């Protein structure tokens, strides 16, 4: 949200979105961020499915799971649901 902000004469009426939501980072809302332990993770791919913000991605080329911290709001659903407890919620700035 640190981007340049437009005035009321420049934006569409009725809150019509003039750019996609991917250009509106919401990651700075979080207090806790998810950190994955690769040793415990079985890559079951449950977390990319359940993430409400589509902020967990499966990278095909590297066969790795990545968190997109620009959009992760720190809800902790992934850590709660992970079958092998491979995800821990860590206070921002502590890891």
């Amino acid at each position: 949200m640190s981007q340049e902000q437009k005035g009321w004469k420049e934006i569409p009426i009725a809150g019509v979105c003039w750019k996609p939501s991917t250009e509106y980072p919401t990651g700075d809302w979080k207090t806790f961020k998810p950190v994955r332990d690769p040793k415990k993770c079985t890559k079951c791919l449950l977390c990319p499915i359940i993430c409400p913000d589509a902020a967990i991605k499966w990278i095909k080329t590297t066969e790795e799971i990545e968190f997109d911290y620009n959009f992760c709001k720190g809800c902790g659903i992934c850590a709660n649901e992970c079958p092998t407890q491979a995800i821990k919620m860590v206070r921002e700035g502590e890891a």
Partner: protein
Amino acid sequence: MVKNQQKVLALNGDEAVAFAVKQSDVDVVAAYPITPQTIIVERFSEYVADGEVKTEFVCTESEHSALTACLAAAVAGARTFTASASAGLALMHEILYVTSGCRAPVVMAIANRALSAPINIHCDHSDSMVERDCGWIQIYAENSQEAYDSTIQAFKIAENRDLLLPVMVCFDGFFLSHTLENVNVLPDEVVQKFVGIRQFPLVLNHRGKKAHFKLDPNNPLTMGPLDLYDYYFEHKRQQEEAMQEAPQIIRRVHDEYAEISKRRYGNGFIDPYYLEDADIAVVSMGSTTGTVRAVVDQLRGKGVKAGLLRLRTFRPLPVTDIVRALENVKAVAVLDRSNSFGGYGGAVFHEVRHVLYDAKSHPYVVNYVYGLGGRDMPPDIIQGIFADLQEILKTKRVKGYVQFAGVRE
């Protein structure tokens, strides 16, 4: 030429509104019945059942849902109408703001009725006055003819693509809604041509491209999503700007309509009566105005310089018109058919007295709250109010700025 084609029908206010909606080529009507509005949607449902209109008629389980259905249809491009009153309008409160915020040009008729408790089905303006800040244009009709004319105008005002604001056409429950009146109606094709086909402005979509301002699966658009402290204020500022632009459009529509109907209501915003040289004047809205007019006639017959200012458009408030109309009057009584409990008088009083603050000369401005719950407002009470104004001018003293006219002590 056109005037000769008008028919005179015996209609009550509700039927007059239903007839106007029938002629205005409306796509969607969603409503929930409530006295004294019910006849509007009853009549309209008959038009639907008889195949006289092609309108999609949606029976909803509440007024909250009725307005939500209208809002949804309107943002998808439909011409929409609903009607309500009293508790029904109060239940719509949340969606009134969503409708104006989404710039959905819904038209709604309000057969003004008191709010509970105690329960009361009769007329006062509490229901619509409390919604004055919700971003809807509010027109108050004096009679059923005006309710008919204003409903037709409302579609053309609301849907103007430079405006896109919802419009409430308010008229007094029972006094107008259930009272037969001779109403001049235009031919169907004249009304249809007048309201025309809805046009859509272009807006930037999420791909940064121009798109028509409506929800269309083939051209996706997102409207009214989460809007925090970074943009919400800008969108509200846009709504205020639209309200500031509205007078030009209301005036134009009123003038165009006058051409086809030969009927005018003042300048579309205010309707002055004997104000040019008036020393004392009453400000009123709705059906009571007719009685005030009769009292002004009596007083003029006796040589009293009495006048009347009727407010037709309450939102947007015609600030300059009110100042010009009243700044040379010496004492003004504002009639309010609703009360602001614990405030200093009623809503109309607040506005009128407030806009006169910067006028060149300051008339005395006093308030009479009257007619709550359908209490009659007979000529003798209005004569008494004019007598109070004369007394103020004589003594240069105001006994009470806010009084209750017609209540038993």
